[in-house]
């Protein structure tokens, strides 16, 4: 079998595997749902995830040890990952092929020539790594924005799967929604469409993971090269060159993605182009093309970027109150050192409450997970820790149900709080409008509930009536404009002197009938005033019990701007956002 055929099989296999792992990142117990599938495999194999978190946290989180395998293989064989394994690379490979399939050989050779701008990816990598390695507390992990594996995972999780599944609803019973995904989509689409301008545009010019592999492949034992000094110089080898690495001349080893198209396209009888241990006889360049000026400039940019972003004060006093992190999340500075915005937590979340944050959460927090209690099928479910179990970098650290609920050995610590629910008394039906409701209290999942009620009898508008006469349980009034059975819902009472109450059973336009069970001790005198009152149960939040799960906010029938809303004050993860003594 030809080596390029093997490569294509490998690309198709790993791309399919990647899509399959995205599909199985579904909450549930069926074979196509997350049981024991290694759904994070590609993220674990990504050395940029490992290196980034090493720089920010000075530790290597255990599943990321897989990246060592990729590093070792790259050191030995070169950038095999890009052309054999990377699902994003395979997408570019395919679209690059579509874009240039009707072009002439000369045009293709021109498209695939080496360009100076290919150095940009190294500068991007330097900026991102400097930001991650930034001294003291200010380090921030932003590699996930451009790192192809988190990028493609995010794009599949938050756009392609929801769109594909939206019409059939197999993966999820109802449509999944994700905020801000238009921009994730635009980014993904731009990266894919740029292949029609230059094949593998993203890989050649932007990809920081490719840049990291380029540095690693410097010492690779086997490389592409020529085994003669001269050949006919037909340049056919560059016709389908994926890396734009100039195999016809001085091959740029750093740019070579091991697609083996040059070897396939070489028309010479004795295979001038080979994958070999000895250096190319036509000469080779092993170092990435990083100019001193560019290097210094990107160092400086990286150093400046962190303080510049932090000027917004978003992790200090100006922290966004609606940035409610999932249970188990580390305190914000530590969280930002680990989150790679892969979207795995948002994909696995059974209720769809986990959402990619927009720019309002701060530039640094773009596309990191945040709870939006309005969008999904419920708030954060009490008995669920799925997001903390799937997080590949432990930005949401793996917690147990006992720890989340404050049970067992965590009983003294109490449950994890995501925030606190606040009642907006200007919007709440019982508080603001005298209408019974307490859906929030009904749905509070805690025992005892964090929302409790106080009974309050409120005299309705035009509720002062004058007694004409009393017959049995029926009070006839002087007023004759009552709406038939308006007060017959079981929530209305008739009050005498504001103290004695009778429950209203029915009413006509001028008579009110009181329940036989709940009635006055003393019959109201003719000419006296009675009050029509509605019995309200007004909700209160017990701030010491509320965990900020957001179920109340989700269920609140005031559906535009909710009358009970969770805000991140009081969240367990950060001591400086404590609310109570």
């Amino acid at each position, binding site marked *: 079998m030809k080596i390029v055929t093997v490569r294509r099989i490998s690309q198709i296999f790993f791309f399919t595997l990647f899509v399959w792992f995205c599909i199985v990142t579904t909450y549930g117990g069926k074979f196509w749902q997350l049981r024991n599938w290694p759904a994070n495999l590609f993220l674990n194999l990504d050395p940029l995830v490992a290196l980034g978190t090493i720089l920010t946290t000075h530790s290597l989180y255990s599943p990321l040890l897989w990246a060592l395998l990729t590093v070792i293989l790259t050191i030995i064989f070169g950038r095999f990952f890009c052309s054999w394994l990377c699902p994003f690379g395979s997408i570019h490979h395919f679209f690059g092929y579509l874009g240039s399939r009707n072009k002439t050989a000369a045009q293709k050779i021109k498209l695939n020539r080496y360009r100076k701008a290919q150095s940009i990816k190294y500068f991007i990598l330097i900026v991102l790594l400097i930001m991650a390695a930034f001294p003291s507390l200010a380090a921030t992990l932003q590699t996930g924005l451009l790192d192809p594996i988190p990028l493609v995972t995010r794009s599949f999780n938050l756009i392609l799967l929801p769109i594909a599944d939206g019409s059939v609803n197999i993966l999820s*019973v109802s449509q999944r929604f994700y905020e801000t995904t238009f921009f994730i989509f635009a980014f993904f689409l731009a990266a894919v469409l740029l292949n029609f301008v230059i094949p593998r545009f993203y890989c050649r010019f932007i990809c920081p993971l490719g840049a990291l592999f380029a540095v690693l492949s410097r010492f690779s034992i086997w490389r592409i090269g020529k085994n003669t000094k001269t050949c006919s110089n037909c340049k056919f080898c560059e016709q389908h060159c994926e890396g734009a690495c100039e195999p016809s001349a001085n091959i740029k080893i750093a740019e070579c993605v091991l697609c083996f198209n040059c070897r396939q396209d070489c028309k010479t009888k004795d295979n001038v182009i080979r994958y070999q241990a000895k250096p190319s006889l036509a000469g080779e360049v092993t170092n990435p093309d990083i100019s001193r000026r560019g290097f210094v400039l990107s160092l400086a940019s990286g150093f400046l970027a962190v303080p510049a972003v932090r000027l917004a004060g978003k992790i200090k006093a100006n922290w966004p109150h609606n940035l409610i992190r999932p249970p188990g999340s580390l305190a914000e500075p530590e969280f930002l050192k680990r989150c790679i915005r892969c979207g795995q937590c948002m994909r696995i979340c059974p209720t769809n409450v986990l959402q990619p944050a927009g720019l309002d959460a701060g530039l640094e927090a773009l596309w990191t997970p945040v709870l939006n209690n309005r969008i999904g099928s419920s708030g954060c479910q009490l008995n669920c820790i799925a997001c903390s179990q799937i997080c590949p970098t432990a930005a949401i650290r793996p917690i147990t149900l006992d720890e989340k609920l404050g049970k067992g050995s965590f009983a003294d610590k109490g449950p994890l709080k995501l925030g606190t629910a606040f009642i907006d008394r200007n919007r709440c039906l019982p508080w603001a409008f005298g209408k019974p409701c307490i859906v929030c209290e009904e749905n509070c999942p805690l025992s005892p509930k964090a929302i409790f009620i106080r009974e309050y009898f409120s005299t309705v508008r035009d509720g002062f009536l004058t007694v004409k006469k009393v017959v049995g349980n029926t009070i006839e009034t002087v007023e004759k404009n009552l709406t038939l059975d308006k007060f017959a819902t079981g929530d209305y009472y008739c009050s005498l002197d504001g103290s004695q109450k009778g429950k209203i059973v029915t009413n006509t336009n001028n008579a009110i009938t009181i329940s036989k069970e*709940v009635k006055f001790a003393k019959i109201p005198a003719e000419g006296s005033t009675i009050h029509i009152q509605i019995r309200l*149960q007004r909700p209160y939040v017990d701030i010491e019990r509320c965990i900020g799960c957001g179920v109340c906010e989700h269920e*609140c029938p005031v559906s535009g701007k909710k009358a009970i809303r969770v805000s991140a004050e009081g969240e367990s993860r950060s001591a400086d956002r404590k609310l109570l003594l």
Partner: protein
Amino acid sequence: MNEQNDRKLNRRRFLARAAKAGLSIAAAGIIAKTLYDKQGPSAQPSSELVTIPDFSVPAMPGRTISIVKGRDRVKTIDKAIDLLGGIERFVKPDDTVVIKPNVAFTSVPALGATTNPELVAEVIRLCYSRAQAKQVYVTDNPINNPASCFTISRIGKAATSAGAKVILPRVSFFKLTTLEGGKYIENWPVLYQPLAKADKLIGIAPVKSHSRAAASMTMKNFYGLLGGRRNIFHQDINTIIAELVMLIKPTLVILDGTETMVTNGPTGGSFSDLKRTDTIIASCDPVAADSFGCSLLGLKPADLPYLAKAQSAGAGTADYQSLKPIIANVT
């Protein structure tokens, strides 16, 4: 395509071009004529309404409600149904049965916030083995995330193990309905798809305290067949619950008072919220079942205004004693 048209115009080509232009104009005109709408849209988009079938079976005087004391749910429900004439009275061979348990919350079975899965499984078994039902479906539109609710409450597993199919509430399964003589159920979405293919409907609910409705039992259980923004009905909970039993005419309801959620309902969440009351009620009349059931919570029927409302609407009997309930014990 951008091919250049360098052919000279002659009569033949001019006529051809004129004919094509004429056809295009005609096509545009026909489309405009066909789609012409003089009125503009009306305020309310019209939509088709569905009618929920009546699932009730003919009444048998003295065999409307049974109240059985017992600790073991399976034995107790078997007895309770037998006392009403056995499952064969309610489910005929080749019937399709829909069971509506209360699966509202992502709560484990032991906490009693959802219908007991063993009870659901036993009723499914009775339908299949004794009544020779063709197919049993189990469905609900839970408050919390549907898939999680069916998983964590174990009702999903119990139902499928007993041979039933679980129907999760998909958007397309909801159809609009209007209750004649109702105040609130008007053009309102209900979980119609499972009901449309059913011959019989069995509701199974636990007894739970409920701050707004005083108690959540078999009548309130049918709230789970409503879709849309059903929470707004809490403003007038008694009327909506009464309307539910006017809308839904079940074959049989089962009220599980083996353990009653006396505090912190309807979500519960702690064993201390439950109290053993060791009673299961089987009834053809949900209003009667709930009228007795509220006594397990220490309430009187007058504390639940929806009972009287349902009765005056002709949807059942709040004075369950008048139905001569069959009372028994299972040891």
